[in-house]
């Protein structure tokens, strides 16, 4: 076991389907670009930029163009990129809205039905999503799952996919510009962000404190490396929380923007006149 662990790990880094994730990311980026160009209403370039930033962060995380170091800090950087930073970029790209703009009607109906589905509302509730991201991370790091994922490439990829999906769900439930029926109010969303961030910070400090025996089940460990990884996790989590909070409060700020009512446009007066004059007439007639 003690020999097989590191050897197997080195093996999955070198060979295996390493180009496949990058290929998928490229496909997703190109697909979005094609849709954005074809949008009949004209697509906001800032959304495109955000999506591409998200894809670039994903590309950094999955390699192999940029090989993150194969140590605990490298893995932490990978989880920060996959689970927190890239999803925010992708969510702010509003892919579902873009899809609704360019897709044929049957597809749009399908998306609409999906968005109204009950299970999705439960899954995309901010607190469910917070539990899936931070709770999922805790599950990986506090159980032998981390050690198992080190050995088995399939599990490794599955864990990464979970980070990405849960991170996307969380960012969308908090601050996504995409349609989200029954999205709870600001207080609930801020509460979920607080819970997830606090959980992440506590988890990072706990891992720092227990670096001698966490994550469990590793054959040979270097506590110092896990301590610096825990610090990176703590401060990286802060960065992600800051960005998420900014996105969340920006939606609130945007929604409270005053409607341009004081410099009243010329349309209301004629309308009022139209209603007023017959009524005035009738009033005078009856009286």
């Amino acid at each position, binding site marked *: 076991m003690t020999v097989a662990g590191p050897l197997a790990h080195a093996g999955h880094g070198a060979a295996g389907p390493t180009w496949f994730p990058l290929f998928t990311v490229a496909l997703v980026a190109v697909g979005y670009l094609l849709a954005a160009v074809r949008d009949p209403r004209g697509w906001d370039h800032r959304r495109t930029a955000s999506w591409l930033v998200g894809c670039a962060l994903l590309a950094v995380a999955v390699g192999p163009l940029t090989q993150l170091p194969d140590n605990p800090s490298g893995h932490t950087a990978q989880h920060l990129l996959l689970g927190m930073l890239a999803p925010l970029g992708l969510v702010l790209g509003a892919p579902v809205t873009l899809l609704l703009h360019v897709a044929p009607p049957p597809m749009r109906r399908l998306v609409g039905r999906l968005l109204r589905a009950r299970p999705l509302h439960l899954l995309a509730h901010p607190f469910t999503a917070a539990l899936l991201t931070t709770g999922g991370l805790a599950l990986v790091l506090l159980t032998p799952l981390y050690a198992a994922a080190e050995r088995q490439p399939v599990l490794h990829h599955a864990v990464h996919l979970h980070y990405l999906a849960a991170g996307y769900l969380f960012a969308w439930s908090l601050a996504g510009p995409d349609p989200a029926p029954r999205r709870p109010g600001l207080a609930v969303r801020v509460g979920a962000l607080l819970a997830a961030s*606090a959980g992440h910070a*506590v988890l990072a400090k*706990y891992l720092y404190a227990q670096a001698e025996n966490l994550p469990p089940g590793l054959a040979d460990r270097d506590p110092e490396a896990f301590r610096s990884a825990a610090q990176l996790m703590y401060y990286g989590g*802060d960065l992600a929380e800051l960005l998420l*909070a900014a996105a969340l409060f920006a939606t609130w700020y945007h929604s409270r923007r005053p409607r341009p009512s004081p410099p009243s446009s010329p349309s209301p007066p004629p309308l009022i006149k139209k209603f007023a004059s017959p009524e005035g007439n009738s009033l005078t007639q009856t009286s």
Partner: protein
Amino acid sequence: MADSSLPSARAADVRSSTLVGVLIGIAIMAAVDEIVFHQLLAWHHFYDRSTPSVALLSDGLLHAAELIILVGGFFWFADLRRRRALSNRLAWGGFLLGAGGFQVFDGVVDHKVLRLHQIRYGVHLLPYDVLWIASGAVLLLAGAGVVWWARSRRPGPR
């Protein structure tokens, strides 16, 4: 009420102006604490072995709350300014109140009651603690003074 040229929106929102100042004061002081004492001076430790797990939990919660307060506070501030409902004096008074309040709280609860970490290690702590808490109390009093002064001359909202 006096100037009827611009209705309702013009009057400064007293409670919101003060509260937004308090929030930003807390968050800025927490950020200064993190940047100066943890990162630059490295007096505070990231974690010291005596920290019990309840303290770890409360520390994580506070830390996460500070960042949210920082961002939320600035967006609220921007919203008040946009609606011309911000009183600058009250916001400054609130800022001092928040900063001083955080400093006192950090000095008493975090350092002494929860014993998360100390101000500095390997030194005689008492003068540091006294200076820390006293400086917070001074800020707190100054903030209370500014808020009181700003409220007493209300008919000049800015």
